[in-house]
């Protein structure tokens, strides 16, 4: 495996940019490690354990406009009125939504295998029939340079979910640390092409699998729906404040909301916007009339786990949890679902 110098990395990135990729990589911004657009000339941060956000922020943004349309809002002498009730007779306008689908080429540079698995999960959800065209527009033609992970922190659990394994077709470059530098190998044709830019050829040696060390080991007895329902979560969620940090930072939480947004400047133009939602929020399960299906903290906690495990396994034959541990690390109360689902090993 060829070794990379910082110079090489910058060259690789320039090569990607030249091919029209928007390079996104881990960076330290104001002391916080997160994925962000890499400014030209700057080197990505490759030696890190945890990032505060995840690829979903770029594939499924917090707020995105689905389409715009002209509403029946009109300015009348009485002020502005969206035409319900229609006092002025029938509304003549037909709805003609206008939308432009995003088209971007994203290159994730230096994300860990768990995050790669999160992209695979989002793919399963968003590209299953009917495919989400907005997601697809961003996702198509993506380039992924994986930074393999040697050791997790207290909250990582990819070791027990096997999500340190990069699924086939989800990596173009594979990088790992070695002697203070980085080794790199191409994992796809695209990857080979980029590696050729720095004149480093692929040696044909077998690469041993790198299994990240877990600081804490747990075994899950069962993640069946019935089992989750049977267990008492009260003691685990006692400290939960329903702040929803767990779902916000989870790389696979994709629940959404869609709303009409108006502007005062031009109230007749409405923008239909997709926003993020969280099962920890009250309005997630509220239906008209105020009936809320997930009323209590433990119901919402269990719901999150059920969505991650049994529900996802049933719908997509894939676990929704990729073992990054963000939901534990980012929770102010450190609510640890590993303890609820399994037993800690000595």
């Amino acid at each position, binding site marked *: 495996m060829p070794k990379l110098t910082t110079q090489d990395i910058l060259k690789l990135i320039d090569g990607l940019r030249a091919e029209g990729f928007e390079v996104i990589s881990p960076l330290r911004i104001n002391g916080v490690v997160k994925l962000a657009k890499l400014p030209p000339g700057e080197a990505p941060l490759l030696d890190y354990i945890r990032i505060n956000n995840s690829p979903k922020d770029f594939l499924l943004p917090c707020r995105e406009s689905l389409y715009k349309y002209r509403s029946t809002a009109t300015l009348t002498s*009485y002020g502005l009125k969206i035409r*319900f009730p229609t006092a002025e007779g029938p509304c003549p306008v037909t709805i003609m939504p206008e939308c432009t689908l995003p088209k971007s080429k994203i290159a994730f540079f230096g994300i860990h295998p768990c995050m790669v698995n999160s992209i695979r999960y989002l793919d399963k959800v968003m590209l299953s029939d009917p495919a989400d065209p907005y997601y697809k527009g961003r996702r198509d033609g993506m380039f992924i340079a994986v930074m393999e992970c040697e050791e997790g922190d207290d909250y990582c659990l990819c070791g027990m979910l096997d999500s340190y394994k990069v699924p086939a077709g989800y990596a173009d470059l594979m990088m790992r640390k070695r002697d203070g530098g980085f080794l790199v190998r191409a994992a796809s044709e695209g990857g080979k092409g980029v590696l050729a830019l720095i004149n480093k050829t692929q040696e044909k040696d077998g690469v041993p699998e790198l299994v990240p060390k877990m600081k804490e080991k747990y075994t899950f007895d069962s993640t069946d729906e019935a089992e989750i329902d049977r267990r008492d979560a009260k003691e685990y969620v006692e400290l939960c404040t329903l702040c929803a940090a767990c779902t916000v930072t989870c790389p696979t939480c994709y629940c959404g909301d869609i709303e009409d947004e108006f502007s005062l400047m031009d109230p007749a133009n409405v923008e239909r916007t997709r926003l993020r939602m969280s099962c920890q929020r009250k309005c997630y399960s509220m239906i008209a009339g105020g009936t809320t299906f997930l009323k209590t903290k433990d119901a919402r906690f269990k719901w999150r786990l059920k969505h991650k495990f049994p529900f996802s396994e049933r719908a997509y034959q894939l676990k929704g949890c990729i073992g990054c541990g963000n939901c534990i690390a980012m929770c102010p109360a450190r609510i640890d679902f590993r303890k609820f689902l399994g037993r800690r090993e000595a």
Partner: protein
Amino acid sequence: MRLAFYSLTSCEGCLTTLITNLGPNLESLWNIFDIDYFKLVREPVGGSKVPKADIAFVEGAVVTNLDRKKLLEIRENSSFVVALGTCASSGNIAFTASRGVKLKNKKLRDVEIFEAEPISSVVTVDFELSGCPVSAEEFTDALLRLINNIEPIQPDYSVCYECRTKGNDCLLEKGRVCLGPLAMGGCGAACPSVGSPCYSCRGPATEADLEAYLKTLEKKGLDKKRAVLMLHMFTGKKAKELLKNGE
């Protein structure tokens, strides 16, 4: 549609926020609505200082006899009253600060002062927009919904939700007391995003769980008393209610 914007005892930061943040939209506000009174921007000509309005936005807490009188007049002349900002919706710092203050004299020649109250203690309030100051976006959204007979929505998420969405590091982890988990979101986590803890200036979140929050602080070895102190600062009357339910 007639709008009016009033100010009681306050810093007038909420109206200023609307004026500066709406920017050029302020003019379109004028083109769309009849605004007979807008403190700082448009003064009424002659006649009453409290013109008839369909929606009245009231900023500020009720502290003086003059506030009280004005507020009653506003209620009488407006079909829909919206509390604008934390002063109006919970009494703000003045609520807590004015309690237990011993003054020799509470009455000057024209002005008499009382313990500060949110406007809902004096009149019926139809909707509350929280925040110190209010968010101009939320105001616009609420206004557009109101005039279409749609009930405006209060955010049902906490400040943490937005803080984490922005990818910030949590201040609690750094050993600082932050009210984010308890506070109603909608401000875009302005304070934690610049490293200052949240003081819950928008009041408690819909499902604020004080007990769990205090236990979290305990687990982290953080000062609970300080959290209660912080909670009292902006949230005024609402903090009082929250603490009462929590205990």
